[in-house]
């Protein structure tokens, strides 16, 4: 008996099995092409929309047994189309064996094995009658035996399957905002990201009869809005799609290929511009322009040289962010007055496009120049008081109050680092003044960068000016660190103030939510301390930062809370650098806030852990610690700091261990002082046989209390010696 798959699978208690597993696509497979033609899609979302569309269609076809497991999938995405080419798609999925549970045997059959009325009713509901009873199978279903009806159903046809796949794909598209538009019938309205104008669905050369968004699939699409040879384009078959669009439609449908073409044209145009210039590399900008054009045409534009007086960061930002142009840099990395335009249009007279774009960019550059000239009429110093009018946070006061706290802390840190306290305080004081300039008001991304330019213009010291810019660093993962002690002092102070303040008023990051970027600030502090490296104990820094806030402004436990928060960030940061969790824990145990030592210690532990004997020594160490913990409970204060009395060392094994310890201690200390942590640990390995011997032959908890205390003291000294770099016991399996 054959039923359509959609009927059967809709019912409960159906088990499906591919009749011939792993052979979904039979010999008569063809390639499939689906295209949705739409109006210009939102450029920032295009790449994701294209990937999602292709991925959903593939997943759905595969789930329905219409395509081979390894079938090749090619995604296309341009401003006006989402499309996908899928290789080896079957016209119909394989038959499926369906095993449908009807009811428990006890209910379906009476004592004589005859069908009960309940079973007959059930059979009628699936279009069968009593003649089917002998074919029913009995099988265990949980604890009861049940009646099953096995049947073979036809697989979905491609038209059915693609219909479903398309509907799935459209429903799953990550659409930023829906639009409502009217269909050609003039009555019905449809909701989609942008109005859709056509669907192409071809299996080989045949149209697959599907319909979505009120559109019936066909083979007609449109090429480039302005450049196509004819208004519509009939796609011959699935495989000719990309080539036809390129040759006849003047469209490069593949996102990647179009992007590559832009890169190629940018490079060629740079050569044409001459003088060894090169375009700025910016992947995000490349993606964006790729989403804005169907066929790129890169042209060279230029602006008046006088604008180059404006800091190049401003001009570059204006051109990139506002105009989507690629600024050209000379071989020294200095901005030139030429830039590259990625146009979607290719008129015979390119000067129309170039002139038009130059007219668009000129007023923006003039704005930037105006801001720069205006801003320089007032010094940064004269703006600082105005920060008193800017609320930083209603619980933390004004920007001026915050600036004062940062300056105080920066001064303290600078003094600890043997740097000029006054320089650090001045840099911190001026660091936020550029927020009140017109340029930073217009381009917030230039904060700090403008501060540096304006400080230099005001005649401030270069060290101070550099620190003003650098105090925002690192701004993101992988960003450069502030260079020089003054810059580090201000950067640390600024980040610590933010972290303590915001954390202290209860704005603690949770899950995805971290509106003040506290994780980033914490990581910034750690990176500066660890990677610079700077010998500043973390808990002291945190305490000092907390003490700068007025009494009662922050929660009472803020210092220890923030330290815990930072240590968690530190663990994550170290794991990202491929250190093992046990190594990290071993080092953090005894690190005591000395962030500048964390990397060399971890490297030492890593070298040590690679040694054959490391595990044994760790195990021995764990044993020492366990005994000591026990002894501490029993001996209490008596043990604390007790020195080993050599005269009381009765057994040879304990004398030998003591001697061995005495022998290596100066070397271990020497390596430690030099920061050679791997060598320190390696020397300890020589103790291993003595420790083993000691545990084998010596009874620590003996009757004689004097001996007992002395042996405990020996172990305590051993523990201390072994755990200078890290808590080695943490490495034990």
């Amino acid at each position, binding site marked *: 008996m054959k039923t359509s798959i959609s009927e059967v699978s809709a019912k409960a208690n159906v088990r499906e099995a591919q009749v011939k597993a792993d052979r979904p696509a039979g010999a008569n497979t063809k390639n499939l092409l689906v295209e949705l033609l739409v109006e210009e899609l939102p450029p920032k979302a295009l790449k994701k929309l294209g990937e999602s569309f292709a991925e959903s269609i593939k997943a759905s076809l595969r789930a329905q047994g219409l395509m081979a497991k390894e079938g090749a999938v090619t995604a296309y995405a341009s401003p006006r189309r989402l499309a996908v080419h899928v290789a080896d798609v079957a016209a119909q999925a394989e038959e499926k064996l369906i095993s449908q549970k009807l009811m428990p045997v006890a209910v379906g059959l009476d004592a004589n094995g005859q069908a009960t009325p309940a079973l007959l009713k059930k059979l009628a509901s699936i279009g069968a009658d009593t003649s089917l009873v002998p074919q029913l199978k009995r099988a265990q279903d949980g604890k009861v035996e049940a009646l099953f009806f096995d049947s073979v159903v036809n697989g979905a046809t491609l038209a059915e399957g693609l219909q479903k796949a398309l509907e799935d794909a459209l429903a799953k598209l990550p659409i930023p905002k829906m639009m409502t538009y009217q269909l050609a019938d003039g009555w019905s309205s449809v909701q989609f990201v942008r109005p859709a104008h056509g669907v192409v669905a071809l299996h080989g050369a045949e149209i697959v009869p599907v319909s979505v968004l009120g559109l019936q699939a066909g083979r007609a699409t449109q090429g480039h809005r302005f450049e196509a040879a004819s208004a519509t384009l009939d796609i011959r078959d699935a495989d000719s799609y990309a080539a036809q669009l390129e040759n006849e439609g003047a469209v490069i449908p593949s996102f990647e290929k179009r992007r590559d073409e832009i890169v190629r044209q940018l490079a060629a145009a740079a050569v044409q511009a001459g003088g060894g210039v090169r375009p700025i590399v910016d992947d995000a900008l490349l993606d964006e322009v790729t989403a804005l054009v169907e066929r790129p045409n890169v042209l060279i534009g230029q602006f008046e040289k006088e604008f180059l007086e404006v800091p190049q960061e401003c001009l570059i930002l204006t051109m990139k962010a506002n105009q989507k142009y690629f600024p050209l840099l000379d071989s020294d990395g200095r901005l030139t007055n030429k830039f590259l335009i990625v146009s979607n249009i290719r008129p015979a007279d390119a000067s*129309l*496009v170039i002139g038009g774009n130059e007219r668009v960019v000129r007023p923006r550059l003039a704005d930037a120049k105006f801001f720069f000239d205006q801003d320089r009429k007032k010094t940064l110093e004269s703006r600082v008081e105005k920060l008193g009018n800017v609320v930083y946070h209603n619980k933390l006061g004004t920007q001026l109050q915050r600036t004062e706290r940062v300056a105080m802390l920066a001064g303290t840190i600078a003094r600890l680092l043997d740097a000029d306290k006054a320089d650090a305080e001045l840099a911190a004081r001026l660091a936020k003044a550029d927020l009140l300039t017109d340029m930073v008001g217009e381009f917030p991304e230039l904060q700090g960068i403008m501060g540096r330019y304006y400080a230099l213009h005001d005649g401030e010291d270069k060290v101070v000016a550099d620190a003003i810019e650098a105090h925002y660093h690192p701004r993101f993962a992988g960003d450069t660190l502030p260079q020089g002690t003054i810059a580090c002092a201000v950067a640390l102070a600024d980040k610590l103030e933010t972290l303590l303040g915001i954390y202290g008023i209860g704005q603690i990051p949770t899950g995805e939510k971290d509106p003040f970027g506290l994780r980033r600030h914490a990581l910034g502090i750690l990176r500066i301390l660890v990677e610079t490296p700077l010998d500043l104990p973390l808990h002291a820094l945190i305490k000092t930062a907390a003490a700068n806030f007025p009494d009662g402004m922050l929660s009472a436990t803020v210092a220890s809370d923030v330290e815990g928060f930072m240590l968690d960030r530190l663990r994550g940061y170290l794991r990202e650098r491929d250190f093992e969790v046990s190594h990290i824990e071993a080092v953090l145990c005894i690190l005591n806030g000395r962030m500048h030592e964390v990397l060399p210690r971890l490297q030492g532990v890593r070298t040590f852990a690679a040694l054959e004997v490391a595990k044994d020594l760790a195990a021995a160490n764990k044993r020492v610690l366990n005994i000591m913990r026990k002894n501490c409970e029993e001996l209490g204060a008596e043990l604390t700091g007790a020195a080993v009395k050599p005269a009381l060392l009765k057994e040879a094994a304990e004398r030998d261990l003591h001697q061995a310890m005495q022998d290596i201690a100066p070397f271990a200390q020497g390596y430690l002082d030099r920061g050679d942590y791997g060598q320190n640990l390696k020397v300890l390995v020589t103790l291993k046989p003595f420790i083993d011997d000691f545990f084998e032959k010596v009874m620590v908890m003996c009757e004689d209390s004097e001996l007992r205390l002395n042996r405990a003291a020996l172990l305590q000294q051993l523990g201390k010696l072994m755990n200078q770099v890290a808590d080695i016991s943490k490495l034990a399996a």
Partner: protein
Amino acid sequence: MKLIILDRDGVINYDSEQFIKKPEEWKPIPGSLEAIARLNQAGYRVVVATNQSGIGRGLLDMAMLNAIHSKMHKACALVGARIDAVFFCPHTNDNDCDCRKPKSGMLEEIAARYGLGNLDGVPAVGDSLRDLQPAAALGAQPYLVLTGKGMKTQEAGGLPEGTLVFSDLAAAVATLV
């Protein structure tokens, strides 16, 4: 999403008492296309709402209107500008339709198409009173430009409260982005 509604004749292109009946008669006002590019770059979707009673009067047909708009879209593309959609009313006064400005049908339709509950604060730029009235009635921000019939409109007075006046589209856009 940022949206802006522009009238066409007298705002984007020079107006004509004799109607714009073919592509050759459509000539952009200097700076207007660049202003649209600037709006696009600032993230605005630019929508045109225009009365085209020339169709109702039989002065031009749909194919011709499409040809005119093709020219407009292409001219925009040259400076990297893009008009997202053109809404037009083909009726004459005698049709008593809901869409012909100063009626608000066309603007309501725009709000619905873009999934906006209302047009609160959406800039609507025009050169005549009938462009500004429906905008003001729907809570949009009316902008009068002095190109096209703008001068006469300003002299006649009676502008909706809060109307902002600028010399042309470029000047209006400069304050928006």
